[in-house]
């Protein structure tokens, strides 16, 4: 599904290399986790894949189902099935959450040549999915992320994910700022979306989230590259020993 090969990325505005030959392949239906110390380039990876301005790819490739992501506009990547759950979801004052969701859903349907959802169907769908994430109807009417608590923002991201039904979901530190209950809600939401033709890339600092969302593969990222990959036990090792020994081991 997602294939990243020897990706080199620098900041556009300064001469600073962030990703230095990152390679990663996530087959359909799998959940991969990326862990790594601060500044290792985890968030950059999520932004480059989703097409945010400010980064320059100097070498390498990234494809989704064989199509080059790097040549597409951000909205084309979205319609192709790539979704990023933001670490810091953005507030849009004055725009109702529901309006935002519906505009997004229909924009993607239109881009894929599908019929737009009728308002009735949309409402039914959004209400059902919101209820699963314990998102109140009142929260659906509020402006996008404005005045939401940290937990509400993250649940809202998962609601968007559930509505847009992407094939490749990237979650950028979705666990940051969540209490135990919110973490369970978010994880349940994600687990409900797991399917043989949907993949996840979960970026996190802590093993804790991976107790709830069981990964197939765990990667350790440092200095702009994947330095070690393994099973879920790798995350436990990091949790117990920290990154120090691990990084020393791989040099």
């Amino acid at each position: 599904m997602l294939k990243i090969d020897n990706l080199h990325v620098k900041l556009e505005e300064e001469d600073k290399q962030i990703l230095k030959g990152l390679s990663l392949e996530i087959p359909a239906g799998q959940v991969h986790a990326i862990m790594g110390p601060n500044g290792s380039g985890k968030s950059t990876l999520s932004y480059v894949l989703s097409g945010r301005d400010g980064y320059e790819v100097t070498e390498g490739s990234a494809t989704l189902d064989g199509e080059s992501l790097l040549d597409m506009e951000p909205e084309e990547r979205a319609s192709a099935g790539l979704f990023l759950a933001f670490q810091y979801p953005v507030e849009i004052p004055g725009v109702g959450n529901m309006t935002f969701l519906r505009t997004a859903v229909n924009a993607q349907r239109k881009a894929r040549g599908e019929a737009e959802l009728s308002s009735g169907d949309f409402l039914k769908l959004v209400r059902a999915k919101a209820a699963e994430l314990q998102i109140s109807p009142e929260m659906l009417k509020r402006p996008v992320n404005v005045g939401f608590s940290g937990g509400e923002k993250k649940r809202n991201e998962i609601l968007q994910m559930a509505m847009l039904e992407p094939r490749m979901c990237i979650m950028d530190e979705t666990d940051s700022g969540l209490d135990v209950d919110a973490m369970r809600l978010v994880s349940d939401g994600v687990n409900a979306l797991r399917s043989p033709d949907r993949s996840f890339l979960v970026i996190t600092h802590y093993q804790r989230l991976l107790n709830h969302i069981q990964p197939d593969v765990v990667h350790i990222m440092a200095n702009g590259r994947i330095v070690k990959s393994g099973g879920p036990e790798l995350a436990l090792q990091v949790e117990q020993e920290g990154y120090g020994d691990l990084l020393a081991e791989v040099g």
Partner: protein
Amino acid sequence: MTATTDLDVREGVDRETVEAVQSIGSYKYGWDTEIEMDYAPKGVNEDIVRLISEKNNEPEWMTEWRLEAYRRWVTMTEPKWAMLNYPEIDYQDQYYYARPKSMAVKPKSLDEVDPKLLATYEKLGIPLKEQLILAGVEGAEAAPADGRRVAVDAVFDSVSVGTTFKDELAKAGVIFCSISEAIREHPDLVKKYLGSVVPQSDNYFATLNSAVFSDGSFVYVPKGVKCPMELSTYFRINAENTGQFERTLIIADKGSYVSYLEGCTAPKRDTNQLHAAVVEIVVLEDAEVKYSTVQNWFPGDEEGKGGIYNFVTKRADCREARAKVMWTQVETGSAITWKYPSCILRGDESQGEFYSIAIANNMQQADTGTKMIHLGRNTRSRIVSKGISAGRAQNTYRGLVTMHPRATNSRNYTQCDSLLIGDQCGAHTVPYIEVKNTSSRVEHEATTSKVDDDQLFYCRQRGMDEEEAVALVVNGFCREVLQALPMEFAMEAQSLVAISLEGSVG
């Protein structure tokens, strides 16, 4: 209706915005109507003033009133204090009167109106047949089950083409007709109130209007009457090199209520056209008037060629206690906008509100705002202004809040937000505040921001293209004002916001 359908409606509205962005390339009202016209000779002088008066079959007193205004006008000079740059206007190179030939004999009813004129309004989406405006997209709460009706007075160049629902309004005692008809049929009301809010010599453009206004709308709502439907005037400038000078007079007698809508469009032409209107509103004890405008005159092309010069004087006088007026405007068109809808809060406890969205794109220039003149005790005013600049446009908010010595315990709240798109446009805020007593309170809040890249990226990551994303963010920025508009207008305005910003990104 249930909450479910209510929500449906809101969603539908937004979808329309998005569709509008995608489907419409540019100014969509830019076509013209081929129709034979009668023109007065070019230029303005006393003979032209007399001619206009004569064409309207006006009584002698009206002719004299116009001439008096004209004689003052020639002694005045055009104001230059606004932040507007435009070439000298040659006032003698304009037609001051243009009338479709078929309107030489005033039709008695809409059935007799030239089909070409009716077709023009139909194409603009203005129903001149007395039909129901369908309720399909209607706000749930306010609408009766059978839909909401709006009475329309349609003004084409210099003349009123027709007014709908007159009979039904008459049953409620409401007078809604063209001003030329009012001058003939209701001279007492016109004599008493015309020029009582905007005096003949108020300013250069208002004085010119007083001399040469050709038509416009007249409304009188009698004591205690809640006007049974919304009233609207639709202005269309069609003829080339023709100025439009309409005059609107609205009188809300004690305890009455009326909501009034005004819409305007003009064909695409590469010469500038002059529009200098005057709107006067008299609000008596306990009465309330809502006046909403969606101004969409042709803004000129991307290089600033053509477009309407819009110099408008609008003022409401809350003449007696507890009178209330609310101005809502969405200004997206015109090459030049010079407009300050104002409230004179004379009656004790009277209230004035001003909600404004002004969008300037490409080479447009807007200098707009309001004046809140607090004269009575315990008066209240509220100003919410949202200015959006894109392209190389300049957008100025200019406002005056005055608390006179007698206006004790009065309050004003002003919120003035500017949004910039791109790095070649400008936003300016010029608030004037005068407080002459110690018990009143004036608050002014102002912000300037740019459309945030993070917001746009967030929207695009969810699948919207850049223009959709901008339209969504800008509509959010304007929400407070859009909500103040009647439902039909709110939808039109939302689409307009999107269309006006076409090509402002990327």
